């Protein structure tokens, strides 16, 4: 009996320590915020454009992820080619890559002197880095793997005989994908979308490296938080942080029960 109780304590204490470690910083935000002045802070010329830009770029990112990520997930889920596991590993790389390295890589590829960017600049006279488009590039680069892996996982759980059956009923691969596969993995798509969107919203390292931090153009909400903190406006940073915390909680709550376990 005594041993069991001690063993239980040995598990319970570290577990609660872990919870405290996670919750204390969030609670600290609530403790330190100057509630009365929140509206003023949120109405500042830094915060409003940052939130607007974050909304614009994360929505674009999500749209792109779904547009190209869903077919990629399907290809990875169903292909039996020898190279498929390697392709899957390749898609996972940005997931573990430090975001700032991703930003450097994006510069080398799409920068004015980059592998692809030089060509774009030469032909159209347009340079991608330090534009809103660059922000979306950075966000897609980090968010797409989250989306693809989540959707692929649920597509692999789909009985492959459904594909064959739909084909015998006369459905082309495209119609099967659209009317059978996508509706049946809708929960996977929803949770993949939530993950990808949340990752894009929080993106910092690749964005600041590849797109810089220009208010209204490339300064997204996380970048603005950092800028406010550095420029001696911690209350502004806290206010904006609280907004992002609120959004995260709302997204999590909306998905919970419905699509997330």
């Amino acid at each position: 009996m005594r041993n069991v109780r001690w063993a239980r304590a040995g598990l319970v204490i570290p577990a609660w320590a872990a919870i405290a470690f996670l919750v204390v910083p969030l609670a600290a935000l609530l403790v330190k915020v100057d509630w009365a002045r929140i509206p003023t802070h949120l109405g500042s010329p830094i915060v409003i454009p940052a939130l607007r830009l974050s909304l614009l770029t994360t929505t674009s990112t999500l749209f792109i992820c779904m547009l190209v990520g869903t077919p990629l997930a399907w290809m990875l889920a169903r292909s039996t080619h020898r190279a498929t596991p390697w392709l899957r590993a390749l898609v996972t790389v940005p997931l573990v890559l430090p975001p700032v390295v991703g930003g450097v890589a994006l510069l080398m590829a799409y920068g004015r002197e980059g592998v692809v960017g030089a060509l774009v600049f030469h032909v159209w006279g347009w340079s991608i880095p330090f534009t809103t488009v660059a922000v979306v590039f950075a966000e897609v680069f980090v968010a797409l793997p989250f989306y693809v892996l989540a959707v692929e996982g649920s597509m692999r759980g789909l009985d492959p005989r459904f594909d064959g059956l739909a084909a015998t009923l006369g459905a082309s691969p495209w119609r099967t994908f659209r009317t059978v596969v996508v509706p049946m993995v809708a929960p996977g798509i929803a949770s993949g979308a939530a993950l990808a969107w949340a990752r894009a919203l929080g993106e910092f390292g690749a964005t600041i490296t590849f797109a810089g931090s220009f208010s209204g153009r490339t300064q997204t909400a996380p970048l603005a938080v950092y800028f406010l903190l550095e420029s001696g406006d911690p209350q502004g940073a806290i206010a904006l942080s609280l907004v992002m915390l609120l959004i995260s909680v709302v997204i999590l709550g909306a998905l919970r029960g419905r699509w997330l376990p």
Partner: protein
Amino acid sequence: MSQTETQSLQAEIRLTRGLLDLDVELYAGPGEIVAILGPNGSGKTTLLHALAGLLRLQQGRVHIAGRLWESPAEKVWLPPEERRTGLVLADHLLFPHLSVMDNVSFGPRSRGMPKALARSRACTELEALGLGGRSDVRPRELSSGQAQRVALARALATDPDLLLLDEPLSALDAATRAQTRADLGVRLRAFPGITILVTHDPLDALSLADRLVFIERGLVVQQGTPQEVIARPRDPYVAQVVGLNFLRGQRVSDQQVDVEGTIVVAPEVPADGPVCVTIPPSAVALYLTRPEGSPRNTWPVTVRDIQLIGQTARVNLAGPFALAAEVTTTAVADLRLGVGQELWATVKATEVRTYPA
């Protein structure tokens, strides 16, 4: 070309998949129901998938209703969606996110039929299978028998030339299976296309099919009408399916066959060469001691196992060769039958049938 040729199926299916080398020639006349029987892993499902175009042939061809669907030699291959097939599997695999109506009209819609027309086609098919009132529900609300009938309706709603049924009744419980088998029989009689029914249930095959094709390890071992197959099985598996004891032997005389060194006496034995011998289990009688003035077919045997089926018991015996006897439950009690018991088995010569192997 004659009507028969234009509406029939001629297929030569040759492909290797894992350990299976499938090499089957299949013919089916217009409107015919052909049952494919065979043990697990014999290639039945692979055969269906090849016909549906879900697996590609390495050699051979598939020709049906005047159209060539596949011929590797001629570089012809129609993808599954361009073949006119309907597929029903053991588990219904209805699309869970679609209503019964949308499941059944999925095929016609996929083949470009306008929505209203597809729905009315689906309606007709659901009515024909007694599911008229269930068209708006989701598949999960259906009973297993209803779900399987919806799956059949979905396959038939495209008016296929070739209906492929892969163990359509095997996932159902006994009572539902009997009812669904009857419904299936009625609907298939009215279906003008060709039906290929894969099963390992002899009752499905005997009650539904016009012709039986037995395959083992990827090869056809016997085919014919149910009557022909019951009368003259040519393979132990076939005999087991139709419920007969099957032996192979060599002719010794006009009335004697040598089976693994034991003489079996029959009313007549075909001239020369190897001989197939069948003995109905009901013709095998069991005794505790060697019967006096016994019939000429008397062998010492040991009980291997006993299964009760209604009022009769099937007793599997080991002796000079494996033998099954069918006796009454009273006989089981009278003889106090038990596994390992030593007995004498007798068979009247008149009950033994022989034919050239």
